[in-house]
């Protein structure tokens, strides 16, 4: 027993670079890579789950989706929702972080409060937002009306549903971006600021010429981190609107879910998922280029 253990220990020692990552790599291969491969295979097949066997049709699914109106709608909704929510979250996150970036009593409390929306279960808070956004009895319209503003139909109208969902997303994620940017601001070097003060630069100039270029890699990194989840936002939209009213808030991702799990069209659904993956990939490659160039200048 003891010799077996020491033999094992010696083996582990000699092959550390191989033995340590091996279990995780094998696990990732089984749970991640194989399903992705299967998904790619299905995207080239015509198959309804429960009916017969998959039939290879090449790029037929991808040709079909070009003429599918719900695909075009899904891309539009995705670009609208993600474009608006990501830019608001980063802009507000930066502004709030700049505001809070000083020593003050209670900064600990603010930072503690800001962790809660990030951790809170998306489905649970989305349901509470659904209550709050109810046009007739919801507290949001009550608050708007009590300060003399007109109420909104929020998620009940195709015109306002996306901005309303963006509001919920911004509520949930801006605090986390704020905390990341705040940590970034605290780690900036002091020298450029001292030099700028000697040169008599004003606050706006300091922000534009010193803070913004220095903090840009952090902003883009936060944006990339956030976009990984935002572009595949499911829980919140599904819980609040299920893509409605009609298909006004149906992102391409939600549509691919519906095709796969309501229509059980595994082949066509897989093709849609491949398109979503490519959209996320392209976005991240572009952002990474920007981040690297921001770092090098």
């Amino acid at each position, binding site marked *: 027993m003891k010799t077996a253990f020491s033999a094992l220990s010696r083996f582990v020692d000699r092959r550390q670079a191989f033995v340590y990552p091996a279990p995780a790599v094998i696990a990732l291969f089984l749970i991640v890579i194989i*399903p992705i491969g299967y*998904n790619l295979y299905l995207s080239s097949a015509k198959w309804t789950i429960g009916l017969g066997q998959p039939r290879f049709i090449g790029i037929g699914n991808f040709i079909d989706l070009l003429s599918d109106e719900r695909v075009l709608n899904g891309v539009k909704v995705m670009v609208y929702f993600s474009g608006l929510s990501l830019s608001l979250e980063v802009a507000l996150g930066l502004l709030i972080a700049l505001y809070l970036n000083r020593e003050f009593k209670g900064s600990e409390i603010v930072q503690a409060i800001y962790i809660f929306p990030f951790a809170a279960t998306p489905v649970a808070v989305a349901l509470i937002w659904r209550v709050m956004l109810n046009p007739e009895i919801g507290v949001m319209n009550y608050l708007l009306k009590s300060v003399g503003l007109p109420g909104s139909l929020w998620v009940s109208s195709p015109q306002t549903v996306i901005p309303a969902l963006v509001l919920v997303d911004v509520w949930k994620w801006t605090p986390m971006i704020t905390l990341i940017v705040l940590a970034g601001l605290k780690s900036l070097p002091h020298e450029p600021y001292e030099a700028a003060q000697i040169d008599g630069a004003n606050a706006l100039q300091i922000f534009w010429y010193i803070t913004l270029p220095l903090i840009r890699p952090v902003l883009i990194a936060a944006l990339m*981190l956030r976009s990984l989840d935002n572009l595949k936002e499911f829980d919140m939209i599904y819980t609040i609107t299920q893509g409605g009213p009609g298909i006004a808030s149906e992102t391409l991702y939600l549509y691919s879910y519906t095709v796969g799990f309501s229509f059980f069209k595994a082949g066509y659904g897989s093709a849609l998922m491949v398109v979503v993956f490519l959209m996320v990939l392209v976005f991240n490659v572009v952002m990474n280029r920007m981040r690297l160039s921001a770092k090098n200048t």
Partner: protein
Amino acid sequence: MKTGTRITKSFKSILFYAGAIALCVPPVFVFVWMILTGLKTGVQNIAYPPEFIFMPTLENFRAVFQQYNFFRYLINSLIVACLATGISLALGLPAAYSIAKYRQGKIGIIILVARMTPFVSYLLPWYIIFRHLKLIDTYTALTITHLIITLPMVIWLMVSFFEGIPAELEDAAMIDGCSRLQSFIIIVLPLVRNGIATSAIMSFIFSWNQFLFSLILSGPKTKTVPVAVYNFISYGKIDWAGIGAAATLIVLPVSVFAFFVRRTIVQGLTMGALKK
């Protein structure tokens, strides 16, 4: 003159605090509203104008446990989250250490692919596989799919924590007669305990909050809390009071966990975000 500047100074700081408090209102308000919704009766919840002051009742919390069998779902979520977190740490810690030490960037690519791929892309193949194996509505199916999220997350967070450890420390331990395995367990792991706590809690939170995989792969026996609370709206009539109570119960544990590691969560996310 001097009192003048002092007055402007304190005025400025009052203004600053007013702003800081205002910035805390949106996050706090939604949580307060969630708790209030759970403490109101069904009638009070559909009253307009909404009631801010009322006689609180714990009736909804009782109903959530007795009518909706919520305790069972809490246990299900707890089991799956603990399994996913435990396995992720067991596999992820050595892997992250090795990636940090031997600069195995190629493994990082798998992790990035895992994080970028839409969850539905995994769900469809896994649904088909689990249906074949008759594993729908089992802890096995839920844990495996949750690992897709938690394992890459643990590795991704831990690499940056391991990179902060000087190699000399380990060399010193090995001169003292430790094997590499011993020095990893005795020397290295205790040094990154903050990182381990953070990734364990992050992993627990993301498994606990996971909705999509559980929506399709769980069933009457293994239903987790996010799916259970979602079902409150599909029973025909919407039970707002029940939703308020259930949401409060679901959000409470993850909020408490996140509170304890709030600093290292931000640190971990920032370091990770800045690298890749």
